[in-house]
């Protein structure tokens, strides 16, 4: 998927003036917040589980090499194969060569953000294979040739009418005059079409929410059951996972799983949590004959030992974007690549480079809601601040902004002068604001005044008010 992250300001402006998208965004996100809150409140241990989850992942990251080795050992011990891939290119090649080794034609896919990250569908298609997304939301956007707009609700930006129009245009083998009003009818149609695809598939690709070092198991969490049909029916099951998805034991997996569903959808448990270990056993009547785990790095281990190490605790629940006012205003596509919202604002500069993604860490009010709800307690605002600092240090910030920041910094390093100048400016602004007490336009402030009035300061600076309060003993 070709990133348009560098165009975030234009993408965002377009999203804000897209009435259809704004209607969808206004209603879509609210349920997530309320459901998460209720689920968290219902489990008295929830906050402490967040600490435990954070600690497990920190322990794993400090010993990542050893846990990966033990995971590999366990997978091989069960008759599976592990493919180590440093880059997206390596992972695409590994997957294609597994597909070719069994002469695969149709490849079904469970939902995987990493598959989006490495663009596996385009790669398989270019090689003459037919990849079929089976998660309903992913299937819909694959038919529409669109990227996902949310990591757990990929078709969140679409209405049921959009889905009906898409199905009518693509499912041409069905009667053109059929009624497609209700979601139940749309779901039944997709189920019918995809059942045939499941039967045809030679290879099934899933992601992994977790890898368990103790047993060599990979874990997927779904509600539809598509990931299970994807990995049970074909001859070959390929798991695509990144290095940081590992946990030590089944007990550790359980701690993370208790956080995941509640943070993502507010469910006590997702409908299906599946542990897959090796290929089918000789006595089994079904299941895949081959089990491959493609372990991808793609820039993640480069974050170890840096100020961004903690972002590798992420379990991709989506809570940060569900609670983000910026995401809620512009939706996922504006972010221009695979990971939107606050996690995207930290991950995309790491994976795409700051030159491409520098706008994202700036698209935040630092309200802190993302960190407040993150099940793994990732300090996302702090990391966005790190990216802003790096951006400035690497001189990627535009010249006008650099000059403004330099001027401000010059004053900020001279407190007496700063207080004096600020006092003067505030008094001048009060006079200029006059009777209305607000500005409809002001030089240098059109970023604010283009959308709303700027309230005029009331004559004293924050520092002056603070000093006065301290004197009065309040």
């Amino acid at each position, binding site marked *: 998927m070709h990133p348009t992250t560098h165009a975030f300001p234009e993408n965002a402006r377009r999203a804000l003036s897209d009435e259809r998208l704004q209607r969808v965004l206004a*209603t*879509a996100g609210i*349920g*997530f917040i309320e459901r998460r809150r209720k689920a968290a409140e219902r*489990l*008295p*241990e929830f906050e402490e*589980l967040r600490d*435990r989850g954070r600690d*497990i992942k920190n322990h794993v990251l400090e010993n*990542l*090499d050893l846990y990966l080795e*033990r995971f590999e050992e366990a997978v091989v011990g069960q008759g599976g194969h592990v493919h*180590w*891939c*440093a880059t997206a290119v*390596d992972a695409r090649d590994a997957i294609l060569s597994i597909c070719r080794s069994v002469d695969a034609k149709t490849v079904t896919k469970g939902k995987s953000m990493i598959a989006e990250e490495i663009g596996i569908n385009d790669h398989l298609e270019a090689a003459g294979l037919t990849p079929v997304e089976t*998660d*309903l939301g992913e299937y819909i956007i694959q038919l529409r040739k669109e990227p996902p707009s949310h990591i757990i*609700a990929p078709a969140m930006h679409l*209405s049921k009418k959009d*889905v009906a129009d898409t199905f009518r245009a693509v499912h041409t083998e069905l009667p053109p005059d059929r009624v497609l009003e209700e*979601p139940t009818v*749309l*779901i039944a149609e997709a189920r019918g079409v995809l059942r045939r695809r499941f039967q045809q598939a030679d290879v099934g690709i899933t992601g992994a929410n977790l890898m368990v070092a*103790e047993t060599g*198991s990979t874990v997927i969490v779904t*509600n*539809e*059951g598509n990931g*299970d*049909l994807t990995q*049970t*029916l074909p001859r070959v099951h390929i798991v695509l996972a990144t*290095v940081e998805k590992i946990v*030590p*034991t*089944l*007990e*550790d997996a*359980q*701690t993370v799983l208790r956080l995941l569903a509640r943070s993502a959808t507010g469910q*006590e*448990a*997702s*409908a*299906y*949590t*599946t*542990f897959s270990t*090796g290929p*089918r056993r000789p*006595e*089994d*009547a*079904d*299941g895949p004959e081959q089990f491959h785990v493609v372990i991808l*790095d793609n820039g993640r*281990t480069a974050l170890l030992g*840096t100020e961004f190490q903690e972002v590798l605790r992420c379990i991709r629940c989506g809570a940060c974007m569900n609670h983000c006012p910026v995401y809620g205003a512009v939706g996922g596509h504006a972010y221009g690549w695979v990971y939107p919202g606050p996690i995207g604002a930290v991950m995309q500069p790491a994976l795409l480079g700051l030159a491409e993604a520098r706008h994202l860490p700036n698209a935040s009010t630092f309200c802190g809601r993302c960190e407040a709800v993150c099940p793994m307690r990732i300090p996302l605002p702090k990391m966005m601040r790190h990216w802003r600092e790096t951006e400035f240090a690497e001189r990627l910030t535009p010249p006008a902004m650099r000059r403004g920041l330099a001027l401000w910094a010059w004053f900020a390093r001279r407190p007496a002068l700063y207080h004096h100048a600020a006092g003067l400016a505030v008094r001048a602004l009060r006079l200029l604001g006059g009777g209305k007490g607000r500005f409809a336009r002001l030089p240098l402030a059109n970023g604010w005044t283009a959308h709303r009035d700027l309230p005029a300061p009331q004559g004293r600076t924050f520092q002056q008010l603070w000093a006065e309060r301290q004197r009065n003993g309040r």
Partner: protein
Amino acid sequence: MSGRDAILGGIRAALGRKTDDLARRATVEERLTRHPRGLVPARGQIPPAEQVELFTTMAREAACTVQPLAALEEVPAAVADYLAGLNLPAELRVAPDPGLDAIPWHARPTLTVSRGPARDADAVSVTGAFAGVAETGTLMLASGPGHPTTLNFLPDTHIVVLRRDRVTGTYEDAWDRLRAELGDVPRTVNFVTGPSRTGDIEQTIQLGAHGPRRLHILLVGG
């Protein structure tokens, strides 16, 4: 350099570690061998009778139907009545599970019974369950010769025969039981909480996306 060396070497360099870091290795080995429990919610740490009650409540909340039965002899009538009540065909694909052998299917001649993994046309499956987890009303289904995984996903209606003494309080209890009874982890362990569902169209939950639309649990035992 192989991908393996590049990744593992990169990690060690970034963390400032060496391969022969014995203390670190010992910590990791101990954790994997002892697999200590984390924080287990108090909700599931209750006496067995209450576990069954909690399991039932939570499973119903997840849109399962739960029917208590005194003994396996009652299963055929319960299944026949359940299917008739929903106008569903009385054709069953039953798991080749020795634990289900004592069910006298012939007592209800209207039921057509075949055994084996699910085929695409099968509308109703009947399986056992390795355990029930009270904490969230979840079934733990372990693959094996007696329990083909396709039975859990292909048919529209999944009927599960769960013995009361297979209900555990927490996930950790269920895993301990699996380690003790099976030793090795089977190819597939499905934790199933309610029927298949999706919220992908306008964030409204609808049942029956790819897996079963109905999950009916027969809770057997006095």
